[in-house]
């Protein structure tokens, strides 16, 4: 309990100081309230039944799109990485395109997605997917390529099939790398979803975009808070799964190779 307090308390102090300072600055009219909302006003947006419902619904929509996009990235990204790792020439032929694909800014692709897929959640999901797939590919691939050569020899010696090597050795061995990719991908999926929503409307991105035209900075800030909360939640979930999966391992065991 004491330890928990000690790890939570320190970061809370600057937060409280900043909130009080913001409140003062706005109340004293040093900064006009259409630029920065008073923290109490943002808080009111969360408790006011009308805006609260709107924000809750938006968060739910964004969460659904981000999670679906993320899961698609995990499945597709890992499959692509497995294919790329299957042979040197496959990797040399296709990996450059994966890199190229990643460098095209999502904000430039989003309008195209609307033209192809239309307005609505599928576009948002596609946007979340596109931004989050590359880290999954890159990290899974580097994990698959880092298999301990001694263990590869061992599997060869016992005549292990291709599938057996993949599922009993290479994929499990790549798990720490895969989780690194998933952590990055989870955050990016939320960003991707919100970018998509800016174009198609709906979700947190939609709320922020509309609030901008209505000059409702309080709602914009509420949306920002919700978006980062969503990202942190996903990140925490992945960390938990990663911890549960890898807790029997030990860093030294892998570096033994």
């Amino acid at each position, binding site marked *: 309990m004491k330890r928990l307090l000690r790890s939570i308390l320190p970061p809370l102090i600057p937060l409280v100081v900043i909130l009080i300072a913001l409140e003062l600055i706005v109340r004293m009219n040093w900064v006009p309230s259409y630029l920065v909302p008073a923290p109490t006003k943002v808080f009111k947006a969360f408790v006011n039944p009308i805006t609260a419902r709107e924000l809750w619904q938006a968060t739910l929509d964004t969460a659904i799109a981000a999670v679906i996009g993320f899961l698609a990235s995990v499945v597709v990204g890992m499959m692509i990485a497995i294919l790329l790792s299957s042979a040197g020439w496959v990797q040399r032929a296709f990996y450059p395109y994966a890199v190229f694909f990643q460098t095209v800014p999502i904000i430039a692709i989003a309008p195209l997605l609307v033209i192809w897929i239309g307005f609505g959640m599928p576009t948002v999901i596609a946007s979340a997917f596109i931004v989050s797939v590359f880290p999954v590919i890159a990290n899974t691939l580097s994990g698959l390529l880092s298999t*301990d050569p*001694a*263990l590869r*020899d*061992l*599997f*060869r*010696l*016992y*005549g*292990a099939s291709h599938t*057996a090597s993949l599922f*009993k*050795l290479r994929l*499990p*061995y790549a*798990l720490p790398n895969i989780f690194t990719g998933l952590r990055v991908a989870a955050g990016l999926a939320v960003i991707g979803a919100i970018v998509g929503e800016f174009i198609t409307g709906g979700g947190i991105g939609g709320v922020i975009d509309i609030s901008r035209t209505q000059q409702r900075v309080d709602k914009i800030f509420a949306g920002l808070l919700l978006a980062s909360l969503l990202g942190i939640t996903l990140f925490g979930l992945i960390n938990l799964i990663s911890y549960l999966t890898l807790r*029997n*391992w*030990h860093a*030294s*065991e*892998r570096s*033994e*190779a």
Partner: protein
Amino acid sequence: MTTIVAAQRAVGTSVILQDIRREFPGGVCAVDGITLTINAGEFVAFLGPSGCGKSTLLRMIAGLDRPTSGSVSLESKSRELQYDSKRRSNIAYVFQDAHLLPWRSVLRNVMLPLELMRVPTREREESAMAMLEQVGVADFARSYPAQLSGGMRMRVSLARALVTQPQLLLLDEPFAALDEITRQQLDEQLRNLWLSRAMTVLFVTHSINEAAFLAERAIVFTRRPARVVIDHAIHLPTERVNALRTEPEFAREMKTLFDALELGG
């Protein structure tokens, strides 16, 4: 006793190396013209300076690498074992570090070779458990590698190698990373395991002491590219305990090997 031992030595795999050479791309020649016959059931130590090509030689014997020229052939005389070889791997390999799968328990690590060879689950678990008992880590069957000491991990690695009842056991400096006491215990245990089984053992080491203690025959190699300096039969009792290491006859064998290493280096 000796007759039983002699009878058991008759099984295992014999290894015939015919003028093998291994040159790596870039011109490094690791092994240069080695011709050797290892008889079925022998315990042979490969001794040589670091980087001389011992691992390369062992990998070629295991079929994990191919010689640039020359041939490696393995022969198994026993009909019973030939039948068994359809299911049981003939060769097992132990590396310098344990190289266990960190996500598998000790028991499941030892079951792995049987699993890859598609042995039925029940039999797998029984064999693995029996093997863990033999090397003295049965109490840790449910533990994970990360929870074990280096010595125990190496025992598990040995169990994993032996669980398929190989006819040829290849070990590449398996105990080099362990402390002296643990190493001597494992030497003794390995020697006893060999005595109780029908298998050929090739053991790569830097240690003259270890080679003399373990083997019936020691082959000393030159600096890279590896060539044979001497092929020496070790005249020590069949049953060996660690106290032997301080006997004068042991010192004599060590001196022979030491002189050969000097000559080759």
